[in-house]
């Protein structure tokens, strides 16, 4: 039987049983809609979480051990020697220093190059951490340098990409400040600061002088509430203010593959250092929670699809029994057992395809509805996504494919039942 004939006859049969066709299509539609909706939701929320916690799965942050038995056991301070040993661990591609500045820096004027209603008398303590240029090299804007500048030149700084979002969504509204433009527009702006000044009583250094920080880029590798400067600048300021450099605050190791992280972390601990799970651990836990919840919902949707397949199987079985004589007539006209089987399967496939297409459409419309409701009713929190869903093209194909496959699976037994009909007995 040719495909065109098969589709023609299957369509006629489906049209002749409108009620059954509508019910079966609805069953397939619900399964497909639920599957596509939940998978799109899981992917969308996962994407939003990655924006909120942009942890790089290949990075681990090494910090001095909480209890150290000293350099004799390989632990102790995170100095240059420790750096070399960490660099030689298997799987390590790079090791970069972080050194917290222990000289206070404060900003009491608006940044230059951006329109901002800085409140009179408002002073912000600026936490600063020194980082190796290699850690943030990929985040520097073209033409920007990240090294300790000559005296009188602005100090290059990098800010966390997320800090801008947090400022615009929480700090600015709370303090009635003007919101800052997005990312790239800010690069180059200069922040007047006072080096040595602290808003905490008795913490201001004896020597206080004016300087400028110049924004060289935004990076996910800078701690959220700090500005990153070249590590050489931190060491220079420590020398200027007589602060000792007993060791680095932390060392960031970049591994070849995320799979190398557990073994590298274990090796770091054996060396007497600790691993700061911090944000990376949160990102992993959030990612895992989202994966588990999305997986459970997708499983539920698959269960609904399986139930739809069962409903279709039951309905088609009843339909085949009711059409025993009709099928025998087709056999008397030349239909083979294979034709009859194919006819029942084609009817199921058409129902599954129609249900799948409808289901995908409903899922997409429901997602748009949820997004519109979220936009209207949810507060404008940092990193609030414009959509909680992701619909890659393959997801549409998955919805339709799963629906059609489920319908076909459900039709296997009824098709076999139809193919076994004895035309002579059924007609007589």
């Amino acid at each position, binding site marked *: *039987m*040719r495909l*065109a*004939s098969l589709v*023609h*006859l299957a369509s*006629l*049969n489906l*049209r*002749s*049983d409108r009620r059954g066709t509508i019910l079966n299509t609805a069953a397939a539609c619900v399964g497909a809609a639920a599957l596509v909706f939940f998978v799109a939701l899981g992917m969308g929320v996962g994407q939003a979480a990655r924006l909120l916690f942009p942890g790089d799965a290949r990075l681990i942050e090494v910090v001095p051990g909480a209890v150290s038995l000293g350099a004799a056991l390989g632990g102790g301070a995170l100095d240059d020697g420790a750096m070399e040993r960490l660099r030689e661990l298997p799987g390590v591609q790079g090791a970069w220093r972080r050194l917290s500045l222990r000289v206070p820096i404060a900003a009491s004027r608006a940044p230059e190059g951006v329109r901002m209603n800085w409140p009179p008398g408002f002073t912000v303590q600026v936490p600063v951490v020194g980082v190796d240029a290699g850690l943030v090299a990929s985040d520097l804007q073209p033409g920007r340098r990240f090294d300790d500048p000559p005296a009188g030149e602005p100090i290059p700084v990098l800010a966390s990409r997320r800090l801008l979002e947090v400022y615009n969504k929480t700090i600015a509204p709370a303090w009635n400040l003007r919101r800052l433009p997005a990312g790239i527009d800010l690069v180059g702006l200069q922040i007047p600061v006072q080096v040595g000044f602290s808003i905490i009583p008795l913490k201001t250094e004896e020597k206080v002088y004016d300087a400028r920080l110049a924004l060289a880029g935004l990076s996910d590798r800078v701690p959220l509430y700090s500005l990153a400067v070249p590590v050489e600048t931190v060491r220079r300021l420590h020398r200027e203010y007589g602060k000792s450099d007993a060791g680095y605050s932390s060392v960031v190791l970049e591994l070849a593959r995320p799979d190398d992280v557990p073994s590298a972390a274990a090796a770091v601990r054996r060396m007497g250092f600790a691993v700061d799970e911090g944000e990376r651990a949160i990102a992993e836990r959030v990612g895992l929670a989202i994966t588990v919840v999305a997986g459970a919902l997708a499983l539920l949707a698959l269960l609904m699809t399986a139930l739809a397949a069962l409903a279709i199987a039951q309905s088609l079985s009843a339909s085949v029994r009711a059409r025993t*004589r*009709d099928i025998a*007539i*087709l*056999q*008397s*006209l*030349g*239909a*083979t*057992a*294979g*034709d009859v089987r194919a006819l029942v399967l084609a009817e199921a496939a058409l129902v599954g395809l129609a249900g799948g297409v409808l289901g995908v459409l409903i899922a997409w419309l429901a997602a748009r509805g949820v997004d519109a409701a979220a936009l209207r009713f949810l507060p404008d929190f940092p990193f609030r996504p414009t959509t909680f869903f992701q619909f890659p093209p393959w997801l549409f194909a998955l919805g339709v494919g799963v629906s059609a496959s489920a319908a076909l699976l459900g039709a296997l037994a009824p098709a076999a039942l139809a193919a076994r009909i004895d*035309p*002579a007995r059924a*007609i*007589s």
Partner: protein
Amino acid sequence: MISLRHITKCFRDGEREVVVLRDLDLDVAAGAFTAVVGPSGSGKSTLLYVAGGLDADYEGEAVVAGRDLRALSARERAAFRNVSVGFVFQSFNLLPALPAVENTMLPGLFAPPGVPAPSIGQLRIRAMEALDRVGLADKASRLPAHLSGGERQRVAIARALLSRPAVLLADEPTGNLDAVSGEAVIQLFSAMVRDGVTVLVVTHEERVSAAAGRVLHLEEGRLR
């Protein structure tokens, strides 16, 4: 055209075996109009199902339209039913949900491999021609429920003619028809015979057997 030799067909009724056709022989020449008469339950329909390749569970030899039916596989028997024979039944056996033209098109949808398969459009044109031959072109879009008994039987005949079969097998074709409709069906059969179609009708109606060129009596499973 039809040659049945030593056909024996049994049914099992619980523990009892019922012999319906007993060592039956039948020869029908090409282009002949033959009627088989006999009382209800005498095995007339069974005889047609054997000759039409619908029933393969029998003993003996059956050669119809040059095909040895015992030698055919199930798939080949289906192709034989599609190409070589046309069936007309007492209860019309139209699909109730399909309009007359779609019912008439059905055999064309199952064209076996090796037979040129017309497109759906071509098939519709051929079905309309077949309906025109039986005088129902103007009722092509009607469902069987909206046709009279005679009209339904004419649709069934148009369907049987679609594949231009060599043999037409009719099972009590006028059994559910009034005198006028029955006469119209008989005239259609006669016209088909004039076109060279071999017609084998089983009936218990005098008016049908009177139109046939040869009448055989089926009694106790044998033809006399």
